[in-house]
């Protein structure tokens, strides 16, 4: 909705914006038409609208026709919904009441839109003094409850619906002005506004022609909700005798009458109340539907349909899938249009490919698969048969571009694959214990004492409203059973160990009082609290600046020696790998394509992807050269190519590469790795 309009010489950006705008609105209408609830609301409101426009058509009786013999009759017969205390037909009165209700709502909201939007545009666009004064005024009126404001206006102007709704309308106008202003403040910074200024569009055309269509969405939603609120106010004021006067029928007034006679005819208060509730409900649901339809990327967050889908999805099985790689087109959470092809491939047969070479294995991952449901067409595999070992005290790097499955692999090891994803195959053995079949409750005893994790964004990994002491002592108290005081002592020691100065005092600080580097030390201390055998570090330095990065890496190296733990380092930064890792696995499109000791990987890369990654890494020896990049992007899991998955981007690919899946043999998944190695060693890059 904020498409910057390209300024073609002599072209009219306004026209382009109009076209884009109308397409936008057509799309919104299309979305609305696919919401059954919204359609029902519109149907209901159409009927009520008809009653409002031509009540005489729908009402079988004159709403004022007194029929005393039939007073307080129940529903049925001639009077569908019974009669009131004067024998007047309830249904006809409801129909005429709709006229008052709908008129009052639409008049007050329309007036409010007509006043509020120009004011909001004006003060938002011009800013400065006008803005400050108006906002102050808005603050003042906001301090007076709407109903009370209506009281004051009615006291002055006299009773009557128009006066009452005038007050309501003023309050709505203020809200519209506020919303418009907020939107304008954002839009003002958009390039199309500058472009319009350059083209010399008049201020009025800028505000109403260019900016208004872009800030209209929240206004439309709010207008729908205000229609319902206005209706409630009309009913409330008429109920109090301050709204409609004699000669008009209002639902609220009907309820006031019913209050007196409800003991005699208990159904009397039911129907007007149902009419109010239903109409307000429809306006609200219409507002919800509009909000969904106008949302910039469908519905934000984990919406009903997608992860709920009627099943009893519990949040803890959902986890948080966002902490890992930055969301990209290949993020597994994005529901692809096509079904993912869970390409069945034979598990890699040759053990030599992944062993740690002499060191005893702490972690053994075999043929691990992680899959997410993809529409009606089954599962979309995002981690596809990954196998590797991590030895005692080893630092193992898992590298690859964003979206290749690194984070999902690590989450699977810790049993934290976000629902609706699941481990769809393979085994994970930690110190000989199989983890994949364990329940979440059993995994709670593994996470902490056996596996620790640290994350990319340390500040987000700490609860913002608690002092760090709380999160830091949590595993100490839970898993080690320390007392509050002992846990605090230990927590201070841990902070000291990871290099947080003045550790004891800082325990009571909140996360926002820590810098990124210090916060990451706190997170590391938390992960290390129970001295886990394996630490999974998912891009631990990506969010930090360069000088801090090396400090944090030093802390990790130091701790590895001190605690004799193994570290699984997930990163896309080959510099980090070179600095700290012993052995590396390169992942691409859900698979490991090469594993090697770190020196070997850097000196003689065997897979073309590895070679490309290395070339795309800045090198101090060749400053000034333009850094090559790998053409294309990582394919998303629903569009993995047949055969070698890197082949479409690979400069060494031959026809055979696209024919059948390539197995991982001796730590390399490439049909041509011999030829590639020969060429690379001869210094020939393609």
């Amino acid at each position, binding site marked *: 909705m904020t498409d910057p309009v390209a300024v073609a010489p002599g072209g009219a950006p306004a026209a382009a914006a109009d076209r884009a705008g109308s397409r936008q609105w057509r799309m919104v209408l299309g979305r609305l038409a696919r919401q059954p609830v919204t359609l029902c609301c519109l149907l209901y409101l159409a009927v009520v609208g008809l009653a409002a426009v031509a009540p005489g058509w729908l009402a079988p009786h004159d709403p004022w026709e007194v029929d005393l013999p039939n007073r307080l009759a129940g529903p049925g017969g001639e009077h569908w919904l019974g009669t009131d205390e004067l024998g007047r037909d309830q249904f006809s009165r409801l129909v005429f009441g709709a006229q008052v209700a709908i008129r009052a709502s639409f008049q007050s909201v329309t007036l409010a839109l007509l006043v509020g939007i120009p004011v909001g545009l004006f003060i938002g666009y011009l800013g400065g003094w006008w803005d400050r004064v108006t906002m102050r005024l808005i603050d003042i009126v906001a301090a007076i409850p709407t*109903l*009370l404001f209506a009281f004051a206006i009615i006291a002055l102007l006299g009773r009557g619906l128009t006066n009452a709704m005038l007050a309501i309308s003023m309050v709505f106008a203020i809200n519209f002005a506020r919303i418009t202003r907020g939107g304008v403040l954002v839009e003002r910074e958009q390039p199309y506004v500058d472009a319009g200024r350059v083209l010399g569009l008049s201020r009025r055309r800028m505000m109403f022609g260019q900016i208004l269509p872009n800030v209209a969405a929240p206004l439309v939603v709010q207008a729908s909700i205000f229609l319902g609120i206005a209706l409630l106010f009309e009913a409330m004021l008429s109920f109090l005798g301050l709204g409609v006067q004699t000669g008009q029928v209002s639902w609220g007034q009907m309820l006031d009458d019913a209050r007196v006679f409800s003991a005699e005819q208990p159904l009397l208060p039911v129907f007007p109340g149902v009419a109010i509730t239903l109409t307000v409900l429809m306006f609200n649901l219409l507002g919800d539907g509009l909000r969904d339809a106008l949302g910039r990327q469908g519905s934000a967050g984990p919406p009903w349909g997608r992860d709920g889908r009627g099943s009893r999805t519990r949040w803890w099985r959902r986890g948080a899938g966002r902490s890992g790689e930055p969301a990209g087109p290949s993020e597994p959470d994005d529901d692809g249009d096509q079904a993912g092809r869970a390409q069945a491939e034979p598990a890699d047969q040759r053990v030599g490919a992944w062993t740690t070479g002499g060191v005893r294995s702490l972690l053994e991952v075999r043929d691990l698969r992680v899959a997410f449901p993809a529409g009606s067409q089954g599962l979309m595999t995002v981690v596809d048969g990954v196998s590797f070992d991590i030895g005692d005290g080893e630092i193992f790097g898992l590298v690859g571009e964003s979206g290749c499955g690194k984070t999902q692999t690590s989450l699977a090891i810790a049993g934290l694959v976000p629902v609706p994803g699941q481990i769809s195959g393979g085994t994970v053995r930690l110190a000989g214990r199989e983890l994949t079949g364990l329940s979440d409750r059993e995994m709670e005893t593994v996470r902490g004492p056996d596996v620790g994790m640290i994350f990319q964004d340390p500040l987000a990994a700490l609860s913002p409203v608690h002092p760090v002491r709380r999160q830091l002592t949590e595993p100490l108290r839970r898993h080690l059973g320390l007392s509050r005081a002992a846990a605090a002592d230990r927590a201070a020691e841990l902070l000291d160990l990871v290099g947080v100065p003045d550790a004891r005092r800082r325990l009571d600080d909140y996360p926002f009082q820590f810098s990124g580097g210090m916060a990451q030390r706190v997170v590391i201390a938390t992960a290390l609290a129970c001295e886990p055998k394996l630490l999974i570090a998912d891009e631990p330095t990506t969010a930090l600046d360069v000088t801090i990065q090396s400090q944090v890496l030093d802390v990790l190296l130091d701790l590895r020696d001190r605690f004799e733990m193994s570290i699984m380092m997930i990163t896309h930064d080959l510099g980090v790998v070179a600095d700290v890792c012993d052995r590396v696995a390169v992942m691409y499109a859900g698979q490991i394509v090469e594993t090697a000791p770190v020196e070997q990987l850097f000196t003689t890369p065997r897979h073309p992807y590895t070679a490309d990654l290395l070339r795309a890494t800045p090198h101090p020896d060749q400053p000034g050269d333009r850094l090559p990049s790998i053409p294309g992007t990582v394919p998303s899991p629903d569009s993995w190519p047949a055969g070698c998955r890197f082949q479409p981007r690979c400069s060494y690919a031959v026809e055979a590469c696209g024919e059948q899946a390539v197995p991982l043999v001796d730590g390399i998944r490439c049909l041509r790795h011999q030829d590639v190695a020969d060429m690379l060693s001869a210094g020939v890059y393609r």
Partner: protein
Amino acid sequence: MGKLLLTRLASLVPLLFLVAVFVFFLITLMPVDPVRQIAGEGASPEQLEALRTELGYDRALPVQLLSWLGNAVQGDLGTSLFTQRGVVESVLERLPVTAQLVGGAMLIALLIGLPAGVYSALRAGSLADRAMTALASLGLAMPGFWLALLLVLMFAVWLGWFPVIGYTPFGDDPVQWARGLVLPCLALGVSSAAVIARQTRSAMRDVLQSNYVQALRATGTPRRRIVYGYALRNAMVPVLTVIGWELTVLLAVSFVIERVFGIAGTGTLLIDAVVRNDIPMVQGGVVLIACIVVVINLSVDVGYGLLNPKVRPQ
């Protein structure tokens, strides 16, 4: 904390001053003669002039404004034309009843809204969650005074569990006092319960998706502990804002609910004043209620500071 309270208190003074000025101009700048409104249709020109002099509306506007503000500062917001009693005195007399209604309604709203919201968030997508969402939509759309009528009919007229109308002071009979408040507070609180449930649900869902929840899971913290020990407090931050708004809404809607139950609270006082064109009473009442709203907002801000360390002044 004290510093936060002080800075917030200091910022109230100009706001309240401006509210008083605004209400003054609202009355004087309307295209209606307040004296004519007060005197009614049948007054002769002489009567009007006499009344104008008596009420001080014949003075120059700045004089009127200064006198209004000067009196306001001393706690005098005018005198009712009908009871001849001070506005502040009259409102303060009725305020305890209103406060009990609002307090009781908020208590009910919290007792229903918070657990319902949390439960719903933990079982997102389940039948219970959908039912809660639907009920909340209904609760939002239902006018409180209608619910009040139905509750009276059901529980007071038919079942006789609660009194149909009236308010018994606590000092007279505590049991009767409590029985008398149940239905009004329930009728008043249901829509707030719906708002709070919705907000709690969405805040809780957001929080459960956050990185620190994953980080806590990664240290083996059990779910219950994560939800009640960490997530709930984080989720309360946005909910508190909504609770503040709802207190203001409850204050206003209680005026209507009073009517159904024949409780003589602030609302009855003000509605009577509106009906009788008692303009000084309405004018003073509006300013006084605005003061209360501002104090409610202040309390919410302070509570916000207690919940969220980031907004505390360092």
